[in-house]
């Protein structure tokens, strides 16, 4: 659903409060809405104090891995005498995810403020905001906002008169999903192919330009000013009372076959069933949900039963066979050929594989070709075993997880919807398979 759109009563708009409010885009508008108070406060604190607050808040990475942000920041050795860097991951490319785009479009200064605080907290004078090349509008908005921020002295060699240097720059990607992987992103900034790097060394030791680096997602950094303004306690209390590991609000992007696709901000731990039927309006008229992918296309597919039983936080999704991932909810209904969609997902990964690791380079392409052959009506019963074996060879054996991600829809698709595959193979034709939910 495009903006402006009225938030649902059960949403908790923190990051999305000003989505659709054109007045919030400019620096003046942002300041009128309380902007840059958190940065001013932060610049008066010791970096370790900021990190301690973020740690205390329980904020975890919103890009997919869910690593505690404050802990990540504390890996940066503040007195090592080396230049530090902050990279803001705005490569938002995980199919199903489109939340960071809205943060940058409507509240670019919120992100700049988060970047500046983060940079200061980790002892960095420079933050690169790596925005995927296709995001022309977010890039334009961010660049305009940065010009305002520099002109107003918020950024630069004497940020907000603090005597501290904080620079934030936009670095534009050029069409590569894998650059959302943190080490590939660093290579891309360095002017290289977006190949993920072997870890160790970890970015906090040797990251971009070989220097200690922290990489945070847009949504993660945008949450930081709110935490500083309202306190760690306030943030920590948002979420399921019985799950202190997942705190705060989270933006979920919803797409596919639902009544009301769009971005929704809810407290972590929100019941997924209510989310799907109440907030998103449930399935399209006359249709039924068939499969849900709750965290971007890289996470395991859920059956509707699994989805309806899930709570929307890091642990809640794991309990029901999947992951929170990036919070990109893809809804597939009974009018879709699920095998075809899994083949399409595999093709995505085959297109995006960086070509380094053997299993990924060859396996993504091979998987795609087998699946497309099955969809074309030329599948055999052995194909499913072959697919599962290839998937096994592609899992847990490569530098990054793109290979694993390609295997996930195949394994969970065959595991949970084997009938769809078998029916296709049996009838030897691309036919619509009725729902077996």
């Amino acid at each position, binding site marked *: 659903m495009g903006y402006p759109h009225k938030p649902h009563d059960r949403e908790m708009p923190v990051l999305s409060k000003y989505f659709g409010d054109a007045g919030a885009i400019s620096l003046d508008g942002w300041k009128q809405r309380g902007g840059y108070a958190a940065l001013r406060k932060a610049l008066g604190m010791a970096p370790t104090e900021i990190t301690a607050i973020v740690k205390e808040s329980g904020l975890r990475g919103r890009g997919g891995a869910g690593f505690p942000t404050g802990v990540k920041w504390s890996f940066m050795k503040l007195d090592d005498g080396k230049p530090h860097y902050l990279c803001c991951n705005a490569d938002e490319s995980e199919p199903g995810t489109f939340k960071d785009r809205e943060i940058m479009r409507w509240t670019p200064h919120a992100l700049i403020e988060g970047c500046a605080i983060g940079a200061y907290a980790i002892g960095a004078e420079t933050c690169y905001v790596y925005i995927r090349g296709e995001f022309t509008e977010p890039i334009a908005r961010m660049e305009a906002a940065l010009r305002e921020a520099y002109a107003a002295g918020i950024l630069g060699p004497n940020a907000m008169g603090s005597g501290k240097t904080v620079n934030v720059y936009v670095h534009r990607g050029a069409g590569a999903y894998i650059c959302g992987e943190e080490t590939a992103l660093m290579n891309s900034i360095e002017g290289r192919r977006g190949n993920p790097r072997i870890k160790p060394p970890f970015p906090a030791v040797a990251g971009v330009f070989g220097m200690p680096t922290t990489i945070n997602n847009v949504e993660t950094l945008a949450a930081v000013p709110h935490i500083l303004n309202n306190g760690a306690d306030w943030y920590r209390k948002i979420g399921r009372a019985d799950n202190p590991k997942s705190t705060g609000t989270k933006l979920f992007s919803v797409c596919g076959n639902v009544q009301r696709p769009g971005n929704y901000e809810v407290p972590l731990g929100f019941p997924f069933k209510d989310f799907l039927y109440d907030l998103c309006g449930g399935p399209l008229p006359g249709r039924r949900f068939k499969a849900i992918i709750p965290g971007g296309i890289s996470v395991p597919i859920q059956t509707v039963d699994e989805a309806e039983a899930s709570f929307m936080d890091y642990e809640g999704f794991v309990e029901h066979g999947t992951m929170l991932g990036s919070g990109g909810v893809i809804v597939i209904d009974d009018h879709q050929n699920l095998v075809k969609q899994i083949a399409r997902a595999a093709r995505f990964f085959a297109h995006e594989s960086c070509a380094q690791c053997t299993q990924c380079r060859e396996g*993504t392409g091979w998987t795609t070709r087998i699946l497309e052959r099955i969809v074309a009506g030329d599948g055999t019963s052995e194909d499913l075993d072959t697919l599962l074996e290839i998937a096994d060879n592609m899992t847990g054996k490569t530098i990054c997880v793109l290979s694993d991600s390609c295997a996930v829809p195949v394994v969970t698709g065959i595991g949970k919807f084997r009938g769809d595959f078998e029916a296709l193979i049996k009838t030897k034709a691309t036919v619509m398979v009725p729902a077996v939910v």
Partner: protein
Amino acid sequence: MADPKMINLTIEGRAVSVPAGTSILEAAKTAGVLIPHYCYHPGLPVAGVCRMCLVEVEKAPKLAPSCATAVADGQVVHVHSPKALEARKGVLEMLLINHPLDCPICDQAGECELQDYTYQEGRAEGRLREGKRFNPVEDFGGDVMYVANRCILCTRCVRFMDDVAQDAALNVSERGDRALIGKFEGKDLTHPWAGNVIDLCPVGALLSKDSLNKVRAWEVDRTASVCPGCSQGCNMIVETRDNLVVRLRPRANEEVNHFFMCDQGRLDYRWMNRQDRVEYPMVRRGDALAVTEWEGAVAEAAALLKGKRAFVLASPGLPNEALFLLSRLVKKTGGAGAFRVRQGDEAPLPGVNDLARRADLAPNGRGAELFGLARANAPLAGLQAGDVLVVADEELAGLDAPDVARAGAIVVIGTTLPAWARHAATVVLPITNVVEEEGTFTNLRGRVQRFRQARSGPGFSRPSWAVAADLLAALGESANYLLASEVFDALAAAHSEFAGMSYEALGLKGALVAGAGTGAVA
């Protein structure tokens, strides 16, 4: 500096102790366990991309790439566990799905790591039912041809050009299974060391145009040798088939050439097979040279030398053994000896310390100097009227005719018979060339290195040192040597720089002459 901390671990049930920072793959080598791998090469930065070297490390959640995983105390590593084997089997199958399986017409067959490991632990049959990717063969320039369909994208070639040659002429182009090695139109692989990518390629994707379709790996004999192309003394392997040298390849020596040799050295082998050789000893009979027996020829040469000064013009391409004996001939007759070194352009390999194709285009100038021969641009300047000029495997071309004319007689010890020698030489003693005899060279840093005999010499030719020894013996010197090693022992006894050296001690990597320093010679 303190000794590095030693790490103790277990690999395939064997206790291993290696310095901290060593990779599991290298540690396994010390235990005699070769972990299959493609992208890893000790002379290149670690890429960790082929995923072939995955091993099981107890208590680790995932298989570890052994090339990129450092050893840790108490690690227990399984190279051939079912899990690790299964992973490698998977990699091999993936590597072959788009591979043409054209071993019968592939130059790499028989020395192909893809072939070897597939036979060793791959699947018997592939499961691909789809068509294979196809890319045309590309001429990369220089001596290199790229057969993209066989490429496994290990990127050794790219890393060699980037990090070792420091001329990033190759790239990985495109993504996913469309990826291939690329170069820029109009920018060929003309770097003087580019040919090393052929050896580095573990499969048949990068091939030598020079030896294309000429060599089958199982047909050749391989001999450890030293490149005679310049004073660097790169260690090499001479490959011969039917007594002909067909290919030269680098042999690893950390102290000299690491894993590499330059294109000029690599491709300059045809002269080693020259057919227009002197095959018989000859002596002058009037206007012509007449074939004779060795004994007669040596006796005649000795007779010429009796009571005369020998002026030895030696080639700096002769081994230490021959040069040592020739220097004794100089001493015995109260004569003199000199040599000159042809010059070329120095071409360094920037990624390796102190490795270059040197300006001195001869392997043993340093040795010649150590034996008291004088290096000179006009080496015959010291030739006195009436001297017997002994031309040892050297050319007279480019030398002043008046200088030569001062010689009372000319004895040629050589592999070929140049035009001038047909009318100027009194005695011609045929010798074998560098691949036909064994001996040692002393490189520009003073490293004494052995080379072995790779083919038999033509006709009645004899090793250079044997001819020089015979000549000495005929002059009444004690020089009764049956083996090159005996000459070397004598040399080591006579020259303090070589003290304590023997063929056995030199081994395959050589040793530095006394006082050679640590490569400080400019």
